[in-house]
């Protein structure tokens, strides 16, 4: 139990180290991006698989590290945009210099090269995706707990993606692994095509669902008092306004890049989590309808998001109660390792083709084999065995 609890603090720890790197300025802006990337790929590769048992507990103590993500992300992004500006809003810089050893003014001076800023933007995009959307995802599933829901939606503003809280829970989870789900990648669909389709259609679907829901009460989807969709749109503006206060229009422009980068990093996870899987619409979602991973870093840093098979079979289960399910269909690599792999479509298809063949052969029901066969025919991919519904 203690070990599980400590694993929950890996993400806040990564954030604290990242904040210190940003506060140092200069080339240190690259440190979070490079450090996270190296730690994840090497950790997934070298550490043993994590098959540890779920913890049957409803203790609040597991929530503390998830709740800690929001203030840490505010600090991280705030510092970064502060460095970009020239003023000192609310005398934060002076206060820090007086009360801690941190000298933001010299950090700002050290950050003069545009290439340093590329690192800063990459670092922020990665952290907002890995910490913000992952913790936001965990919390927005807790639809019976208003505090968690509110916190979750604010975490999603770091990727300008508050509609995720509607579409993911009420759309994606109901329609996963069917053609109607924008967040399920089809066989043969490359990441870049998927990213457009998923980003746009998910947003539109959130709007449609919210509109259809509010019509039942005679309310407008544009009314922020009634509509979580509209409220989310306004919430997404708050970080941009803060960026303006810290660094003017340059701050806003950089913020937009950071938020969109984070959003598209989330789409990579969407991309491979159900890639090519099929389900009969209306049949219960089973563990076989998600790609699972038990790689150590992916499982533990991402609040068991990699235990995706159990997550989709039981969507309201908290992260520490999820099982490893090594018998579920497993990705060839860890969740975090699959991110760079997905960015190279030929490589991604190369590693997923045998995984899909295995899924068709060992996991699919006869009806799903028929769907899989059609999907394979439409995919244009070579190397897929056409599943026969009669095969056993």
């Amino acid at each position: 139990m203690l070990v599980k609890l400590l694993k929950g603090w890996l993400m806040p720890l990564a954030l604290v180290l990242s904040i210190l790197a940003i506060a140092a300025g200069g080339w240190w802006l690259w440190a979070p991006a490079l450090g996270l990337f190296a730690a994840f790929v090497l950790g997934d590769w070298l550490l043993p698989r994590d098959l540890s048992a779920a913890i049957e507990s409803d203790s609040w103590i597991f929530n503390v590290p998830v709740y800690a993500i929001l203030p840490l992300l505010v600090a991280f992004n705030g510092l970064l945009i502060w460095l970009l500006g020239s003023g000192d809003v609310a005398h934060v810089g002076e206060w820090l210099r007086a009360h801690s050893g941190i000298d933001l003014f010299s950090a700002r001076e050290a950050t003069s090269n545009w290439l340093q800023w590329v690192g800063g933007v990459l670092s922020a995009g990665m952290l907002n995706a890995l910490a913000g959307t992952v913790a936001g995802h965990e919390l927005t599933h807790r639809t019976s707990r208003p505090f968690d829901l509110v916190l979750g939606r604010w975490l999603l503003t770091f990727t300008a993606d508050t509609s995720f809280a509607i579409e993911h829970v009420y759309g994606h989870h109901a329609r996963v692994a069917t053609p109607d789900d924008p967040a399920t990648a089809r066989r043969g669909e490359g990441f870049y095509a998927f990213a457009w389709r998923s980003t746009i259609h998910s947003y539109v679907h959130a709007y449609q669902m919210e509109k259809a829901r509010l019509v039942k009460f005679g309310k407008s989807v544009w009314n922020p008092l009634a509509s979580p969709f509209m409220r989310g749109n306004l919430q997404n503006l708050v970080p941009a306004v803060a960026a303006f206060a810290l660094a003017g229009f340059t701050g806003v422009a950089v913020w937009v890049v950071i938020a969109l980068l984070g959003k598209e990093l989330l789409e990579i996870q969407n991309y491979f989590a159900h890639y090519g899987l099929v389900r009969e619409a209306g049949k219960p979602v089973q563990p076989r309808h998600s790609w699972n991973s038990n790689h150590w870093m992916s499982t533990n840093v991402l609040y068991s998001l990699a235990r995706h098979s159990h997550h989709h079979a039981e969507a309201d289960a908290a992260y520490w109660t999820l099982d490893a399910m090594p018998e579920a269909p497993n990705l060839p690599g860890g969740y975090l390792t699959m991110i760079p792999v997905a960015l190279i479509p030929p490589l991604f298809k190369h590693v997923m083709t045998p995984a899909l063949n295995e899924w068709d052969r060992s996991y699919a029901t006869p009806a799903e084999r028929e769907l899989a066969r059609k999907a394979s025919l439409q995919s244009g991919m070579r190397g897929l065995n056409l599943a026969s519904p009669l095969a056993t």
Partner: protein
Amino acid sequence: MLSNLFGKKPASYAARIASANVELRVGSKETLLQAALNQGIAFPHDCRAGGCGACKCRLVKGKVRELTDKSYILSAEELRDNFVLACQSIPQSDIEVDVQLLEASTVAQTHRSPGRITRLVPLTHDILHVALTLDHALPFTPGQYCELSPQDGSAAGVTRSYSFANVPDANGTSCTAEFFIRKVPDGRFTEWLFNEAKTGDSLDVTAPFGDFVLRESAAPMLCVAGGSGLAPVLSMLQGALRSLRRPRDVTLVFGARSQQDLYALDAIDALRREWPVGFEFVPILADEPAGSAWAGRRGLIADHLADALGESLSAQHAYLCGPPGMIDSCISGLTAGGVPGSVIHFDKFLDQSHLASTRKVA
């Protein structure tokens, strides 16, 4: 402390399903659907995640806490009429709901198919492994049984009931039927099967019967099988390996007379290795000769339950299959150990000597 101060919440509430005249208890942390399914009530459902609306029902009386926002799923009329999703509703008081229950599996339509024996292999000195190939696939759920009627020979016209030992395909039917059949002294059917029957012989098979099936739950499972009662239990566990949404710890107790009466140990071992969470196998021998090399448990199953399961006994959901004496003593032991009767499921094997009116023989 605070709960003492403000009056403790009851551990469960009553839920009445008026249309079916059924009342059940729902635990304070349980959804209405979980409780109904755990207690074998055929509540309509599908996704169990608040996404499909199949479990919607009208809340006639009482209060529930709802886990998700039902207004994405239900229509304006349903919202106005106070419909709720059973899979997302935790009662906060005694409640009454209006819903049309599904037909229970016991009254589901049965199907008949001719079959031919493809396998007749002894498992022990008095238990045969029998496999049939069916002309038409028959539907069944692991744990259910069928009726067998030999077409020729000395048992022609006799009908006996046996539980399936195999699992159906993913679509719930199977073209093969397997059984573990124990010899009944002077029994007409088994005398024929053990002495006359050969591969290729014809039997008529009618299925499915019985409500001894796995109920969806996260609670640990205690499976107790006596002799040929292992058949439906193995079927149930092998089926669960494929379809369980959430793996549950299993304790499988297998009662036999002596070491030579144990069988299917390879299949049990394979299950144990593939089972994703805890799987404990506890063989118990009733008549093993004193002084033999057997280091395991000896005696009656009921006497070992408390010791074998320890503190987890009261949390178990039990599935018992075997002779009447074993079932009755296990139920007493489980009830004394704090297991509620509503989560003890059993299938009693009776032979023709027990009662003329009973159908089930092994």
